[in-house]
């Protein structure tokens, strides 16, 4: 049984249908890269899984439970954590306070403030600094750490490299690799195809709210993904179950 199963999901922004009948699944311990051009519906899909957007139809099944109507804070308690696009830290709070906010009582796991600081050593000297005063890389590390504090079964990462220098992106991905190696299940939205393919087990390419390519990262060529990315290669309509 998949850890997460998205079934014929439709999400609307007013009259605009941002996600159009998307279906896929992810097994425990897998890393799935979700790629696509701007406006493809990746962020909306991720936010719908996290409960920040309500689905117009279809359903999200997590660990065997239908999450329809379950609010975002309850989904965190069930084990889904989102690192949102743009970090969305609480800028008036310190790094430590942001991390403590992510803690969810009753969830099994060993993530703590100290473990996050060990995982992201650049945060150690900034522990008591306000999040609004951090660099982009430090903010991203705090946002990922905050999500990890809930000991999630599924980590959703939205554009973790956006706005960061290549050096900082390298550092963030080095930390992510550690998480992947530890068996954390991850869905990663990423614009950088090379990075997305290098760290993931599976890849899904979205275009105009639909999945246009899905497969194993090792077997799908970069050329195929690039074509799908720009709409030159369409495979199926309405989604390809993984």
């Amino acid at each position: 049984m998949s850890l997460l199963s998205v079934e014929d999901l439709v999400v609307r922004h007013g009259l605009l249908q941002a996600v159009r009948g998307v279906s896929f699944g992810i097994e425990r311990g897998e890393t799935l890269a979700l790629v696509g051009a701007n406006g493809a519906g990746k962020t909306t899909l991720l936010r719908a899984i996290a409960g920040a957007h309500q689905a117009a139809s279809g359903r999200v099944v997590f660990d065997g439970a239908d999450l329809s109507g379950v609010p975002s804070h309850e989904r965190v308690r069930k084990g889904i954590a989102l690192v949102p696009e743009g970090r969305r830290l609480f800028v008036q709070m310190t790094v430590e306070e942001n991390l403590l906010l992510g803690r969810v009582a009753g969830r099994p796991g060993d993530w703590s403030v100290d473990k996050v600081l060990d995982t992201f050593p650049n945060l150690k000297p900034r522990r008591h600094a306000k999040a609004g005063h951090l660099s982009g890389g430090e903010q991203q590390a705090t946002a990922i750490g905050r999500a990890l504090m809930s000991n999630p079964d599924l980590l959703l990462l939205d554009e973790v490299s956006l706005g960061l220098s290549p050096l900082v992106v390298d550092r963030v991905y080095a930390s992510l690799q550690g998480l992947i190696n530890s068996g954390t299940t991850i869905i990663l939205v990423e614009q950088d195809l090379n990075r997305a393919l290098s760290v993931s087990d599976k890849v899904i390419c979205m275009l105009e709210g639909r999945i246009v390519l899905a497969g194993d990262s090792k077997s799908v060529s970069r050329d195929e993904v690039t074509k799908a990315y720009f709409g030159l290669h369409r495979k199926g309509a309405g989604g390809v179950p993984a």
Partner: protein
Amino acid sequence: MTNQIVQGILLGGYYALIACGLSFMFSVMRIINLAHGSLAVLSAFALWLLASHLHVPPFLGLAIVLPLMAVIGWALQRFLLERSARGGALLPILTTFGLAIVIDNVLFEQFGADTRSLAPFIGSLSYDSWEWPGSIYVGKLAVIIFATAVVLLGGLQLFLTRTGLGRSIRATSEDPDTAGLVGVDARRANALAAAIAMVTVGLAGAFLGMRATFDPYAGATQLLFAFEAAVIGGAGSLWGTLVGGIVLALAQTLGAKVHPQGFLIGGHVAFLIVLFIRLYTSGLGLRGLLRFSTGKVS
């Protein structure tokens, strides 16, 4: 002059107490509660009822009234304000305005227009004072009110910064959408904040009844003082509320020294001066002022 300054500072403690809840609700829920003063008067009447009919002293009565006020705050948020907030920013203001009218008139219906006070139920505390050097008489009740305000504001500050619930309220105040994504139940945080705000209102109502008289329509004046103190101190800043209360009270006491009718006018003038200073220092006119007044809990 020294006497006026001391009395002004002590009176500022009461204004900080009554402004605290208004400022807290605004900064967390972005709701200007126009029923704030009426709810304080409701608390005063509840204590008066307990004292006059059941012989429960007001300080003991707080053990009953404050939890009741917390429940009222929680219910207000869950069943009234939360629903009205879905209709835009104006609707909660109109809702609380309507609520104030309902509370005032229900109190009038039940208790009539007579003024009442809790002073007869607290013995000599209402008029006892200490004499300080320079023939300055400091009322014991005024000192208790000021100390309560400082302890309350300090306690709230500690609660907001040192506890998980406090951090949840601050996160909800800053970004309710993201708060949900990190596991914070924004509805619960808002209801809790409303409950806390009503406890502070209840406390302010108790001290209103002890230090002065009140009647069913006394809420509007208390709301005005609370609003002025909150704006002077910077809405959303807890310690700013104390500063705002002290500035307002100092202006009132100094105004009263200048002219017998100057008490209220002094306060209003201080409020307007601060308002215009903010307007011009923001450099953005009215828009800047509005931005100024949307401060977060700190």
